[in-house]
């Protein structure tokens, strides 16, 4: 199969379904765009059901029901049932606020396979401050217990930044106490709201080093007890992350309003033409939409990526980050030490202040 020219078209594995941008929490590192989709623009139940059927036919295996807070959708149970009915593995990514015990039971009956709950910190006061929502921490603990009680596997997701980076051990202990089989230690990635709050969130190089050592130690200590996955803090990296496993290669993202993106941040790149599930079949979007073909393969690359031995390993890093930091989405992700602008990233990481968070709000 060929997409543009002789670029090989891969089969996507995962679909991130952003069911809504509405969310009661205000986390200052939210991965949603600064311009959030209003409720009136959200896709209806039937359209999501069609998207799931088309995704399964395209070869997608897993759907991640996310947001915003997916619990803000009154039809979440029907949406989950439709995804399960299409044969997809269903993963609910939730803040826990807005998912009642009754809803969870209905989701379990509808075929929900897995739940991921975000935790902002190991102590209630700090966690609720970061989330910008009093009582969030208590609700997360309660939902975690309900998930485990229904024997649904639980992942605890911890987003790591300067305010909680010294408590990784405590946060993993909390995940264990909650009965999680997996914990994600995800250092903030600086897009959208996190980019806006970068100076308030950025840890120091010494903190990042200690955090990496802590994760290594915890992995050894809890081997076989809990799976610890880590997302690295790439401003301190020498090599870039292979973002979304390569542009238009493994996954796609559907926004609340129905636009299909190669990754959740792709709308931050100006000039890309995204197609909507309201007007196109998902398979056509995957194969032919200009945004998906913009950075597929390697022909769009410039030096030093073009002739780099790693070009098929990390695909030049992240396009959104290249644009955010250099103004050119086809440039080498400057996180890479081969980038001529790598020094600027190091300089940016050194700019830290304790300004109040700009909470994510509609």
């Amino acid at each position, binding site marked *: 199969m060929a997409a543009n020219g002789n670029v090989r078209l891969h089969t996507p*594995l995962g679909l991130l379904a952003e069911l809504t941008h509405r969310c009661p929490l205000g986390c200052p590192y939210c991965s949603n765009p600064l311009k959030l989709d209003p409720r009136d623009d959200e896709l209806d139940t039937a359209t999501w059901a069609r998207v799931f059927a088309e995704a399964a036919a395209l070869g997608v*295996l897993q759907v991640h029901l996310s947001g915003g807070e997916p619990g803000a959708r009154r039809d979440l149970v029907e949406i989950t049932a439709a995804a399960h009915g299409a044969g997809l593995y269903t993963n609910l990514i939730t803040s826990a606020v807005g998912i009642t015990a009754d809803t969870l039971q209905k989701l379990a009956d509808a075929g929900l396979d897995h739940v991921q709950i975000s935790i902002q910190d190991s102590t209630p006061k700090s966690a609720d401050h970061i989330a910008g929502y009093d009582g969030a921490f208590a609700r997360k603990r309660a939902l975690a217990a309900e998930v485990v009680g229904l024997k649904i596997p639980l992942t605890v997701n911890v987003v790591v930044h300067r305010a909680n980076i010294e408590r990784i051990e405590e946060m993993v202990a909390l995940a264990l106490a909650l009965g999680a089989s997996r914990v994600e230690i995800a250092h903030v990635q600086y897009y959208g709201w996190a980019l806006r709050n970068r100076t308030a969130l950025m840890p120091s190089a010494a903190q990042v080093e200690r955090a990496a050592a802590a994760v290594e130690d915890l992995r050894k200590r809890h081997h076989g007890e809990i799976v610890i996955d880590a997302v690295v803090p790439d401003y301190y990296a020498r090599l870039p992350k292979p973002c979304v496993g390569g542009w238009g290669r493994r996954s796609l993202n559907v926004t609340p309003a129905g636009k299909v993106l190669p990754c959740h941040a792709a709308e931050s790149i100006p000039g890309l033409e995204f197609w909507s599930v309201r007007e196109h079949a998902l398979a056509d979007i995957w194969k032919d939409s200009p945004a998906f073909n913009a950075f597929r393969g390697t022909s769009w690359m410039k030096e030093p990526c073009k002739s780099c031995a790693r070009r098929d390993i990390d695909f030049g890093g992240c396009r959104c980050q290249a644009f955010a930091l250099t103004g050119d989405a086809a440039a080498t992700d400057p996180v890479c030490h081969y980038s001529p602008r790598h020094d600027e990233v190091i300089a940016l990481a050194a700019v830290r202040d304790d300004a109040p968070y700009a909470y994510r709000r509609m």
Partner: protein
Amino acid sequence: MTEAAPAIPADARPRLPRGVRLVHSEAQGGWVLLAPERVFKADTIAVEIVKRCTGEATLDAIVDDLAKTFNAPRERILADVTAMLRGLADKKLLEL
């Protein structure tokens, strides 16, 4: 040679936990193990082993069946199965 995996009781009845499924996908070109936010391609040997982890068959019975089906020495099958099941259990993909 890698270090032998710790033994598994002969009467253990391994099974996939809720949230882990072995499925065949034409589009992905074969069998895959679906797990929380992860997908693992399963090779022929893995498929033959995991398919037998129903929660009903004992380790003993699984090894006997594989030894018979593939006409292979039981001891070698036991070592291979033990290593694979331990590896899966460590990744929370299997309950022993």
